[in-house]
């Protein structure tokens, strides 16, 4: 890490030294006993680059803080017990209805605890935002290549956080023991029971007997408020430590290299900004919670295994799993060796695990294909890594298909379609969509790179037509300034690996695979405009040596000798 030098553009403000009154005295007292000033100095001068998309992780962090604050309040009143009781609270349509103590206390929080419903809704909306912002943060990191060395491990930690967040969400969703959460648990129970051989045993172990039993809420509660948050906080801390150790990535720009970070220091800029941003995020969540109902358990009623409501869906982050179950065609279940083999469950589960696994290890896949062992602190623009961007687009399309399938019934009723038709369309989308998205995205990226190259070499059309003294007409091309041009040429172009025998004179299958993968990644590429090309395009007395102008424009430009349209 010694190779990275932080050079702030802005002069860091001088911290007040002596004579600061009581604040100064207190600070001095602390410093003399803890030597904390070294830490403050180090962290205060830490530089972060400025780009809106770099704040997505912050949103996740802040919504997590909101979740912890509101969740703590809820634990004061929630009873994680499935003891049977009769509701006697304020909500009339449930008066006298038999339910578990968990549901009873969740209703008590909603109707009888002062501010309880608001806090419940804050907790739930914040949870939805938490996972949504993690998802967007991961997409940002993926599409800009921020997962490359040295950040592969942090990508994996982040992925673990994503999975933990989903687990937190699901265990929380299941706690109130209302009809919706019970239906969700029943689906999970089905997934577990669908596992060959061990499924039924696992289900009985988890639920303490036949579903639903009387212990699952207590167990989920322990997971939800103790185990999962503890692991989550530990990984979150590790994630942030790595952000500090690696320093933040930045987009290409003049003066920005792999060895520096250009931006603003934490003190005072980001301390103020981030602190303010926390309250903005909290504010947005509080507004949502104040005005919009979420998870109206009083409508759903207590859980009872017999009723299943129409429109039963999981929260959005589990939707892709629900959708996978809806998309799998029927007829995949059979009895063999006296066991039921539910491939209608096993296949979706395997597909989901493979999808997540691929996300988990992607940094290593790409690192192996490129053979690139260097550190990267300058981000890629998505278009400049067409194959990666196309893979990402394919993954997003596949995920979106599964996600959409989870609301197939709502699409059917709201657009007056048949639910079978919706399912068949989404099935086709899940299978063909990723390929279509891959090819379109790759072509769009390459097209954009060509456009960038064209702009770098020839400038952009200004629309200003000038008549020369000789009578000919030219269109004036505006040239980019050096700062703008830098952003368009500062990227790397990889070339496919040549298949060469190794030191023992052999070509192994692994080498063949790697070469094939490398070809797949980098066969279609647009190299950035080189210095020579730039000089050729802009130098005096040279004709436009570069391709890709239409003939008509070529005719306009060529007679000018290549220099009049500067």
């Amino acid at each position, binding site marked *: 890490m010694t190779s990275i030098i932080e050079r702030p553009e802005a002069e860091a403000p001088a911290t007040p030294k002596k004579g600061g009154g009581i604040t100064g005295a207190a600070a001095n007292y602390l410093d003399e006993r803890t030597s904390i000033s070294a830490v403050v100095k180090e962290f205060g001068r830490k530089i972060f680059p*400025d780009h*809106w*998309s770099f*704040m*997505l992780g912050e*949103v996740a962090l802040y919504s997590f803080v909101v979740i912890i604050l509101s969740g703590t309040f809820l634990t004061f009143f929630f009873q994680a017990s499935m003891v049977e009781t009769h509701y006697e609270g304020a909500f*009339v*349509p449930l*008066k*006298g*209805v038999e339910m578990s103590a968990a549901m009873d206390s969740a209703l008590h929080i*909603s*109707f009888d605890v002062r501010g309880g*419903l608001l806090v419940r809704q804050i907790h739930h*909306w914040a949870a*939805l*935002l938490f996972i*949504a*912002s993690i998802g967007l943060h991961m997409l940002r990191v993926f599409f800009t290549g921020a997962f490359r060395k040295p950040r592969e491990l942090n990508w994996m930690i982040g992925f673990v956080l994503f999975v933990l967040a989903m687990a937190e969400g699901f265990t929380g969703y299941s706690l109130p023991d209302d*009809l*919706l959460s019970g239906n969700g648990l029943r689906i999970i129970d089905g997934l577990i029971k669908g596992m060959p051989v061990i499924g039924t045993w696992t289900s009985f172990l988890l639920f303490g007997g036949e579903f639903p039993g009387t212990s699952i809420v207590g167990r989920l509660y322990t997971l939800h408020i103790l185990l999962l948050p503890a692991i989550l906080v530990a990984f979150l801390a590790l994630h942030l430590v790595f952000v500090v150790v690696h320093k933040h990535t930045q987009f290409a720009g003049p003066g920005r290299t792999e060895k520096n970070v250009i931006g*603003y220091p934490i003190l005072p800029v980001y301390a103020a*900004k981030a602190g*303010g*941003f926390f309250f*903005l*995020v909290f504010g*947005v969540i509080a507004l*949502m919670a*104040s*005005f*919009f*109902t*979420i998870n*109206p358990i*009083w*409508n*759903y*009623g207590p859980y*009872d295994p*017999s*009723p*299943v*409501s*129409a*429109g*039963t*869906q999981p*929260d*959005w982050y589990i*939707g892709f799993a629900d959708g996978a179950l809806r998309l799998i065609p029927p007829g995949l279940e059979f009895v063999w060796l006296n066991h039921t083999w539910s491939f209608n469950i096993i296949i979706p589960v395997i597909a989901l695990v493979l999808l997540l696994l691929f996300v988990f290890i992607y940094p290593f896949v790409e690192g192996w294909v490129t053979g690139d062992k260097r550190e990267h602190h300058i981000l890629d623009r998505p278009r400049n890594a067409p194959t990666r961007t196309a893979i990402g687009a394919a993954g997003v399309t596949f995920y979106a298909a599964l996600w959409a399938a*989870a609301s197939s*019934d*709502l699409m*059917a*009723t709201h657009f007056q*379609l*048949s*639910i079978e*038709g919706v399912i068949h369309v989404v099935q086709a989308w899940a299978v063909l969509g990723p390929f279509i998205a891959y090819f379109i995205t790759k072509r769009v990226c390459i097209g954009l790179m060509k456009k960038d190259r064209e702009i770098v070499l020839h400038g952009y059309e200004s629309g200003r037509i000038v008549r020369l003294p000789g009578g000919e007409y030219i269109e004036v091309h505006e040239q980019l300034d050096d700062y703008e041009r830098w952003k368009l040429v500062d990227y790397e172009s990889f070339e496919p690996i040549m298949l060469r025998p190794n030191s023992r004179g052999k070509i192994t299958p692994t080498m063949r695979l790697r070469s094939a993968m490398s070809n797949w990644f980098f066969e279609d590429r647009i190299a950035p405009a080189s210095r020579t090309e730039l000089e050729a395009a802009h130098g005096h007395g040279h004709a436009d040596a570069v391709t890709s102008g239409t003939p008509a424009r070529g005719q306009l430009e060529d007679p000018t000798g290549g220099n009049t349209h500067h």
Partner: protein
Amino acid sequence: MARRSRKANRRHPLATVLLIAIGLVVTGGGYAAFSSTTAATAETDTSSQQVIDEGEKLFASNCATCHGMSLQGTDDGPSLIGVGAASVDFQVGTGRMPLAMQGPQAMQKPVQFTDEQTAAMAAYVASISPGPAVPDESLLQADGDAANGGELFRINCAMCHNVAGAGGALTEGKYAPELTGVLASHIYEAMLTGPQNMPVFNDDNLTPEDKRDIITYLKYVENNPSPGGFELGNLGPVAEGLFAWIFGLGAIIGLMVWLTAKSN
């Protein structure tokens, strides 16, 4: 001479006008009295032959094409023998009948007949063969036990109509409609007659009091807005997820762009 002759005249000059006015009042008033008597009869006595005849005419011109001249049904529509007045009141009273076109199921559309005409057709259909009658007003007041109704609703109805009565999808383009804004009488008749794809909940299955409780629950949900704020269509986690992504995260990204724009 002129004065005398006028005095001797037995009739006042305005007598003709008065006579015409009296005549008009008597005939018009008589007509009005007569027609209001018929209207009153239509409401109270659905079995009066006059009403049944009126219903028969309406049936012949609006329904018989598909259901047959003697309710026997055709290839295009089912037999109506034994469906009862309740069924007619539901199907015609919610605008589902007459059908605009064949499809997965009859769509709700603007009602085409007045209440009297609907009642006349119901009386006609009921007169051919007995069937479930239009429910008594006392069961439609939404004054029963909402808690019992809610429990019955979750067990019997929610799998198609959704726990909050927001509706849901069935197979092959059929669907269970939304239950908000539906008249209590139509809810009752639907349970009683099982229109379209809905099963019949007869009085042995759900007693009239149970049906009243279910109506009470639905009307409670409809008339008491959610304590949590806007309901987002009562569609559950899908609507909530879309809202969180589009408006929640959308607003936050807007703030992020604003925050980073200010520094430059």
